[in-house]
């Protein structure tokens, strides 16, 4: 067949396709299904009173703020002198405040609705209704102080380890690129991490404490010492603001906890999502623990630090995520111009010598991607720890 004939045939069939009539469609049915083509027939009072109801709610919030501030015992605390009533009043009139316009010392009190403070490109913190927080520091590290109630924080991931911290009583919760909730109650501070990780410890010792990896929830004393709650109950065990009952005896410090309840070889520390990180107290505790168990140390017990450092966890996680992303790109079929994306939670476990024991995905990726990861995980080396550790992280991969 000559190319000219083929070309003419293409022109002919294209012309025929062009002349095809438009499809017959039940336009009335489509128009009926499009809500935006229908004239709304709301009851007259619903339309006329809606703005008034909103305005009334805002006014109530403002009044509640002015009335509530002087009676709030926490408001006259350590930062009482820095109270800025006017910014706080303005805050109550909006559900979202531009944090860059707030001066350190500004106290924010949420009325009947939650109140968000947005620091663009850095973090957003949202006070639960009737909660009070104070902006303590602006800049590279953003620090807020929770005086009453509960605050949910979402921190933009950054190359810096700590860019945001919440202080509640004498507890300091430092974020590592994360979303978490801190609730101040009379008997302690509860921390719930829904994404990423936070370091919880004494307020006057930044960098020291217990690392919580999401998903995790834990109760701390007002001094920053972890309370041994039933971690197996998961997040539901610690509802923000819920009084804790039936708690185990409170250890003196995180190091005491490490010494008293060391995990058995081959298991992951804590609940699998919680690990201690280094610091003077933690190191002292580890030494005390090894001194208290001479027979164990002399046997086949592996040596090395009991728990990984925060940097070690982040480094290992970055390597595993990079491997998964690379394998997904290499082993996912796609056609020209089609992007394939997937969200999965990666859980990896390490060995005492720093090797990777396993990498799992939930939901699972394709068998080809998982086989690639399995091959590649032999090349990852993590921090050596006595028992290995386990980390979970939700990631998006793309082809």
């Amino acid at each position, binding site marked *: *067949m000559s*190319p*000219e*004939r*083929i*070309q*003419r*045939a*293409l*022109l*002919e*069939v*294209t*012309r*025929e*396709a*062009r002349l*095809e*009539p*438009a*499809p017959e*469609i*039940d*336009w009335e*049915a*489509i*128009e009926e*299904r*499009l809500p*935006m*083509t*229908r*004239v*709304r027939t709301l009851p007259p009072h619903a339309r006329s009173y809606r703005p008034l109801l909103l305005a009334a709610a805002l006014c109530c919030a403002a009044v509640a703020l002015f009335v509530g501030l002087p009676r709030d015992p926490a408001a006259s605390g350590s930062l009482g002198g820095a109270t800025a009533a006017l910014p706080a009043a303005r805050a109550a009139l909006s559900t979202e405040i531009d944090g860059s316009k707030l001066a350190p010392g500004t106290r924010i009190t949420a009325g009947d609705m939650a109140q968000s403070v947005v620091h663009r490109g850095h973090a957003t913190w949202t006070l639960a209704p009737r909660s009070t927080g104070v902006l303590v520091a602006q800049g590279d590290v953003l620090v807020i102080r929770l005086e009453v109630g509960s605050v949910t924080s979402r921190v933009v991931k950054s190359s810096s380890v700590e860019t945001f911290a919440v202080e509640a009583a004498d507890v300091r919760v430092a974020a590592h690129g994360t979303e978490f909730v801190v609730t101040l109650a009379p008997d302690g501070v509860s921390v719930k991490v829904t994404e990423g990780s936070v370091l919880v410890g004494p307020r006057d010792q930044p960098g020291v404490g217990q690392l919580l990896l999401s998903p995790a929830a834990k109760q701390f004393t007002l001094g920053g010492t972890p309370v041994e709650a039933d971690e197996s109950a998961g997040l539901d065990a610690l509802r923000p603001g819920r009084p804790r009952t039936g708690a185990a005896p409170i250890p003196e410090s995180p190091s005491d906890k490490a010494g008293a309840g060391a995990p058995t070889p081959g298991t992951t520390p804590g609940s699998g999502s919680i690990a201690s990180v280094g610091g003077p107290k933690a190191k002292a505790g580890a030494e005390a623990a090894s001194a208290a168990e001479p027979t164990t140390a002399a046997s086949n017990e592996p040596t090395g630090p009991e728990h990984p450092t925060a940097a070690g966890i982040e480094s290992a996680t970055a390597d595993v995520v990079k491997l998964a992303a690379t394998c997904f790109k290499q082993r996912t079929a796609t*056609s*020209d*111009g*089609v992007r394939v994306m997937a969200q999965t939670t990666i859980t990896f476990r390490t060995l005492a010598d720093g090797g990777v024991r396993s990498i799992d995905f939930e939901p699972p990726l394709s068998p080809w991607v998982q086989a690639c990861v399995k091959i590649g995980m032999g090349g990852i080396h993590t921090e050596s720890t006595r028992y290995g550790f386990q980390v979970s992280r939700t990631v998006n991969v793309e082809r």
Partner: protein
Amino acid sequence: MVSDASDLVARCRAGDAAAFRQLFREHRVAVARLVQRMTGGSPDLEDLVQEVFVQVHKSLGGFRREAQLSTWIYRIAVNVVLMHRRAQKSRPYSMPSLPDGNVADDGELPDEQLARNRRVAALYRLLEHMSEKKRTVYVLHELEGMTPTEIAKVVGAPVLTVRTRLFYARRTLLAELTAEPALATLVESLGPLSDPAPAAEPHKEPA
């Protein structure tokens, strides 16, 4: 009657249901035809057309009047179809539905009508196997009659890229045309060059 687009869009933005109904009625046939051509006759045609107008309504705030309203709606329609096709990617391919024989009498014999329908269906099958970028520019240019400049606005690519995709789309079709029996028959039936078929390049842009 086609209304003034700016006024219509302004009224739609203000929540005027009647205005949106007017916009829908003015553009629905063009959108349906485009969706049909982009999908080769998908059984989800009505749902897709509906989705296009839902997206148009959602995006009215982003209409900047840099392009004609129709071009802007085409752009949304193309995106809706592409998203739909990606979602359907893993499903088995279904043959485009052929028009039945109960069409208006235009003087064509039933056999001729059937043969033409088969040829058109064969063309859509060839387009189906093409990459979405090439298929999109081919449909917009050859079937919808849009110029490369207009297509560039719809697909968000440089005009030169559009022309390149068009070139490769034609080349792919020419290479695979005779793989379809209905089109191979057409090629066989065409006479010598002295009896040319009607030219099909009505969309050249002015120099």
